[in-house]
């Protein structure tokens, strides 16, 4: 299966129905009540035929860009809906979301133009469900209330931005030697600027300590942070390079962001993509 067909399929139900359908997952969770469901939304649990994905995605610059576009579609729509929801307080939150929204829209346009310029049909935009099957209510559409909705808006934004940083990094190797590498890096660092601001807006540090998702983040988002505790860089354990706090676990993990694989990124995104 070529990468384009693969990603087209990824936007439909085919792949998600490989073993357990997403509806089944959330149907099960529905019995636990909303609060429990929020804590248990299985980021990373979406079932994917990983072998197919790996064969299709790896070492393929086009696949890397199609994945990037899918993630940008998700972010772009999320921020658009957030701004329309009336949930965001005016002032800093609205200013921040507006700036990020502008960038995500630009990234979508940019990636589409780049793919088309390379003679490739861009993957189509999936249908998104930011409630993740009813686990969240970030736009206060189902009456969760402004305060909770706002907290979820921030938590989802943090998860999406930190995921984006890791996903772009994970595709860098696939873009090595490609004319798209520099542009991808330029998007990657913008996602990191966003991530830092959203985290700080939530009262966290702008950087990731160990594999901590941070206060107030649903346990479901832990997949976004697993692996960030790595201290082996280029074969060196950076905690052994010197003494003092600069080489403690906290600083040594904060100082390096870690990549995630394409299928890990897809697993996270898939929770917000509707089967059609």
């Amino acid at each position, binding site marked *: 299966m070529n990468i384009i067909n693969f990603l087209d399929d990824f936007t439909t139900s085919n792949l998600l129905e490989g073993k357990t359908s997403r509806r089944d997952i959330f149907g099960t969770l529905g019995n636990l009540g909303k609060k429990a469901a929020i804590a248990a939304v299985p980021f990373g649990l979406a079932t994917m035929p990983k072998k197919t994905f790996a064969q299709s995605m790896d070492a393929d610059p086009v696949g890397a860009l199609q994945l990037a576009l899918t993630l940008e579609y998700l972010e772009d729509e999320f921020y658009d809906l957030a701004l329309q929801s009336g949930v965001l307080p005016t002032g800093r939150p609205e200013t921040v979301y507006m700036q990020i929204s502008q960038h995500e829209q630009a990234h979508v346009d*940019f990636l589409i133009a780049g793919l088309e310029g390379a003679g490739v049909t861009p993957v189509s935009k999936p249908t998104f469900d930011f409630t993740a099957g009813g686990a969240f209510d970030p736009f206060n559409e189902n009456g969760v209330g402004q305060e909770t909705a706002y907290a979820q808006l921030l938590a989802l934004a943090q998860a999406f931005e930190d995921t984006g940083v890791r996903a772009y990094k994970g595709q860098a190797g696939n873009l090595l030697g490609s004319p798209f*590498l520099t542009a991808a890096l330029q*998007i990657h660092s913008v996602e990191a600027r966003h991530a830092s601001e959203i985290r700080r807006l939530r009262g966290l540090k702008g950087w990731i300590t160990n594999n901590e998702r941070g206060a107030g983040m649903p346990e479901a988002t832990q997949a976004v942070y697993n692996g960030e505790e790595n201290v082996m860089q*280029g074969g060196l354990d950076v905690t052994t390079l010197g003494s003092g*706090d600069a080489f403690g676990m906290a600083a040594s993990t904060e100082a390096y962001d870690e990549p995630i694989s394409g299928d890990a990124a897809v697993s996270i995104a898939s929770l917000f993509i509707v089967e059609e």
Partner: protein
Amino acid sequence: MKKEIIKVHQPKPAKNRRQFLKLGGLAIAGTGLLMACNNDDDQGSMMPPEGGVFDLGEGDLGVLNYAYALEQLEADFYTKVVNSFYANISDVERQVLTDLYYHEVNHRDFFKTAITAAVEGNVDLVLPTLEFDYGNLDFGNRDQVLATARTLEDTGVAAYNGAGRLISNPDYLVLAGKIVSVEARHASAIRTLINPGSADFAGDDVVTVDTGLDLALDPSDILAAVADTGFVKTEFTANSLP
């Protein structure tokens, strides 16, 4: 029109580069040496030994030494910041600047060890420890410290973004990626400390509005701007990097 957007080289107007890399509004008297050009010994600075000017090298080694130079500057700057915090510093600012100090020291020592290992201990190929002088920069002045931090972090982001395409080894590319996003997180935080509640964390001065792309600059542009600050006293060249 759209098809032209993605290019290897960032088509950023030269005027913007200079604006971005300048220490906006600060009168910092640069007495530093030009890195690739003539010597400047009117301050009595130490001359390098005859023929002893270090060249960063070519290929991946050159990029690693280049990154090491930038990390040395950042680490040295934040060391001075945390050793004499400006008066009445807020808790948040103290925490941010302390973390940046930790991270940059970690990066610096990582590059020293990694490059030394990569050249199998041939220390002649490893950029030596650089000397720095901040001239009239007042470390007791919050505005000057934060503005300098912003410039260093934004410069780091642009430098790593521009250097990615010069790297051949995919492991080094991922390493650069692991570090550049942390530099971008730093830049974002510093920018918000300077202008709270604004869109400056990813401001239009660094992220092109039409494309949503951050800056990416070649080593020659970055090193020229760094030389202009006058902070780096130790001469070195980058003859094999674009």
